[in-house]
């Protein structure tokens, strides 16, 4: 070797200064916590927005106290204007999908635990990792800025269909500056996620410790790996789409705006653009995005359940293959969002079948979960309650997919509250239950303290029952033809449905308020919680083998664990009890028969 010597790739000296330690930190654990914090801020903002929307929907044109302070234009006398409702709706969707459902289960937990679960001391490219968070943070600031810019944020919904999103201010308030800020924010966000995915994939492929074969990775690690591969492809498509959208705005190009459009009696200076082009580009990202939000939840929930069922899943491999199948199929089904978009009806059918097929891997995952409950020794605690709640929600939201997968039925359900109920249950609530399960399960490792179980259970009961009270009625509304994205229900046939909306609003307020219990529990336990043992759940995977909680700077205190077992050796006879750690060389007799 020569003077061109090297340093271990993932190794960087422990930081001294406060800034390097907590702000511009290279440590994947700190970055994970930063992501979690960002998601926490975002989720409460998003929830606040949904409260305002629900109040307005239940009691339209009621003066909401204090709303005028938020936006004088948007709510004169506290009465929400139609455009302000749509602006809040757009921001709710964007914040929740991008800055909560993508960042929390994937970026936050993934950053913290993926390197530990593969037995590495950090991600391979710590600087990229740091950048990925701060880029995401900037994206968030840019999005928030649109609240205060010009006449407010964009009102085009999180799907931002062209030409509404592309023609500019003529289309309505917020479609000028607010729209440009939206597109810029998302383009920046994409960069952050691409950097993150790059790290995740490389970590999984290259940083696995000795003896850690791919099949010995915990299901959570697998979920993050699959998600990062999807993120890499999906966000790489959304970014150029956003850039083209920005160009249509600021440079007068016509990528998405056709000719001959007349707004406010003025002929628009565009020609030839294709509005379907945006929909194709967007949904090619958009549908995988749904699975980017939910697959980490599946992994986390499996991980949590296994530890609390005291047994491995019926089949480790089948779960992995199913999640991978979901990931691959999600690219072939995006067209089911466009059944009535004027797309060739033949391609509607072509998209319909894979969309129906994708229910098979989903069903397998659910059956494996439920089948593994059989004959288990189920421990009930907040984490496992949320994990089980996830399964219930995922099933409830999943079955409505049967309807929307069929173009013929989509004719009557498209763009109704049925769709809203469907994706809120299967994507939003389920994913958030996954986040909760992960939080209650991993909190002791992340902060070295236990969360309060009693508060946790209260939080669970409100969330579980509340979520059903909110989102089940959405399906009924949709079947009755209640159209989504309406700020008021002026149509005769929607009048009788308003009481249902009032009920949903009340449920939403209560359920939302219950989330404050979680916030309190989180903050209180962080500093004053009962000190946590190293392995409170008697779990086996590597994150529970770290010498301290939270783990030291290099995770395993200068050592690198050597892996001798599959990740989930529960229900065995061992010196530690009914489980054996993944890195313990102890020979054990598994309680379960060999798996094919």
């Amino acid at each position, binding site marked *: 070797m020569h003077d061109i010597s090297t340093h271990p790739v993932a190794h960087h000296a422990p930081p001294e200064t406060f800034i390097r330690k907590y702000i511009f930190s290279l440590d994947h654990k700190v970055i994970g916590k930063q992501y979690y914090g960002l998601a926490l801020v975002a989720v409460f903002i998003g929830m606040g927005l949904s409260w305002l929307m629900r109040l307005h929907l239940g009691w339209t*044109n009621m*003066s909401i106290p204090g709303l005028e302070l938020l936006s004088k*234009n948007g709510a*004169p*006398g506290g*009465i*929400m*204007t*139609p*455009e*302000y409702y749509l602006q809040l709706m757009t921001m709710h969707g964007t914040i929740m999908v991008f800055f909560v459902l993508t960042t929390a289960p994937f970026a936050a937990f993934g950053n913290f635990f993926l390197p530990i679960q593969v037995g590495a001391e950090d991600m391979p490219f710590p600087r990229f990792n740091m950048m990925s968070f701060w880029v995401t943070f900037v994206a968030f600031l840019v999005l928030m800025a649109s609240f205060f810019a010009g*006449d407010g944020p964009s009102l085009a919904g999180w799907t931002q269909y062209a030409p509404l999103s592309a023609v500019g*201010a003529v289309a*309505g*308030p917020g479609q000028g500056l607010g729209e440009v800020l939206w597109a810029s924010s998302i383009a920046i966000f994409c960069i952050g996620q691409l950097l993150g995915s790059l790290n995740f994939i490389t970590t999984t492929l290259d940083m696995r410790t000795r003896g850690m074969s791919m099949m010995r990775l915990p299901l959570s690690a697998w979920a993050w790996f699959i998600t990062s591969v999807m993120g890499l492809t999906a966000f790489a498509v959304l970014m150029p789409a956003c850039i083209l959208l920005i160009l249509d705005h600021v440079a007068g190009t016509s990528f998405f705006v056709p000719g001959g459009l007349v707004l*406010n*009696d*003025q002929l628009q200076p565009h020609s030839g653009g294709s509005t379907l082009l945006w929909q194709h580009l967007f949904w090619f990202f958009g549908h995988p995005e749904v699975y980017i939000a939910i697959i980490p939840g599946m992994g986390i929930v499996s991980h949590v359940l296994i530890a609390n069922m005291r047994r491995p899943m019926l089949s480790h491999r089948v779960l992995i293959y199913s999640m991978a199948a979901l990931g691959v199929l999600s690219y072939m089904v995006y067209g089911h969002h466009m059944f009535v978009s004027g797309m060739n009806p033949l391609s509607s059918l072509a998209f319909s079948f894979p969309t129906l097929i994708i229910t098979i891997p989903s069903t397998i995952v659910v059956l494996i979960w439920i089948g593994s409950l059989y004959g288990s020794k189920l421990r009930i605690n907040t984490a496992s309650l949320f994990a089980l709640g996830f399964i219930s929600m995922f099933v409830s939201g999943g079955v409505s997919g049967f309807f929307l997968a069929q173009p013929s039925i989509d004719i009557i359900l498209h763009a109704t509250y049925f769709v809203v109920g469907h994706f809120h249950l299967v994507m939003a609530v389920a994913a958030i239950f996954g986040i909760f399960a992960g939080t209650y399960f991993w909190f002791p490792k992340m902060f070295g303290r236990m969360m309060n179980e009693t508060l946790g259970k209260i939080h669970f009961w409100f969330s579980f029952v509340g979520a059903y009270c909110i989102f089940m009625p959405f399906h009924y509304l949709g079947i009755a033809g209640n159209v989504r994205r309406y700020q*008021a229900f*002026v149509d005769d046939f929607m009048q009788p449905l308003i009481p249902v909306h009032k009920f949903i609003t009340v449920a939403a307020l209560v359920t939302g308020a219950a989330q404050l219990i979680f916030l309190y529990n989180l903050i209180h336990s962080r500093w004053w919680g009962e000190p946590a043992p190293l392995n409170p759940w008697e779990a086996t995977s590597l994150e529970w083998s770290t010498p301290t909680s939270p783990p030291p700077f290099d995770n395993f205190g200068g050592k690198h664990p050597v892996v001798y077992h599959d990740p989930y050796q529960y229900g065995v006879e061992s010196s530690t009890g009914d489980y054996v750690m993944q890195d313990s060389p102890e020979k054990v007799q598994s309680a379960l028969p060999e798996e094919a």
Partner: protein
Amino acid sequence: MNRWKVVAGTAVFLLVCGSSMMLTRNVSAAAEGKVTGTVKLDGTPPHQRPIDMSKEPSCQQQHAGKPVTTENVVAGPNGGLEWVTVYISEGLSAGAASATPSTPQKFDQRGCQYIPHVMAVDVNEHFQVTNSDQTSHNIHPQPKPGGGNHEWNKSQPPGSPPFDIAWTAEEVSIPVKCNIHPWMHGYHTVVKGPHAVTNADGTYTLENVPPGNYTLTAWQETYGTQTQKVTVAAGKPATADFTFKAK
């Protein structure tokens, strides 16, 4: 004797006070002078299409019986042309900015129509936008791009307070529309100095016009503008009639 003086004095005093109170306007008018006239349409007015408001039942009911039509050309029985703005386009000394009314003008939305259909305001004159309907309207004026005025688009839900707004530059005229009710359609004419909009019988009066030679302009949304010279002397009102030819 003295009594008489006192009585007379008091009487005169009261008279002066009273008259001065009553006659202030006339006095100033005498000093200022004014222009009156009638705007007529020569020929048969073009057919005004009836407006179908079935989309907005709350408005449709208000017009039950008498169907509303477009207001591009509104001519009275004797040919008097309504909704024509008359203003001084030349000759006004820079100093003589007209006195804006003490109570701000109202631009009301009632029965899914703009009332008034054409509103003339002075530059920087504040006026009130109100919504008397049971439905949300969005008020969307569209000044010429690049001019001194900026386009805005603002909704007014039922029950929300009126808002106060002004135009910052002269412009004849700014079309105003409501996107939620595409048939709703009006104009803001923004001019400096005395201005008026003709009544149903086509008459108008320009108040507070200082004596001098002026060019008057009459603007009608369909037929465009007409001008004529007029000389205003203190005391007696000048008259200026306009006639638009029906196309």
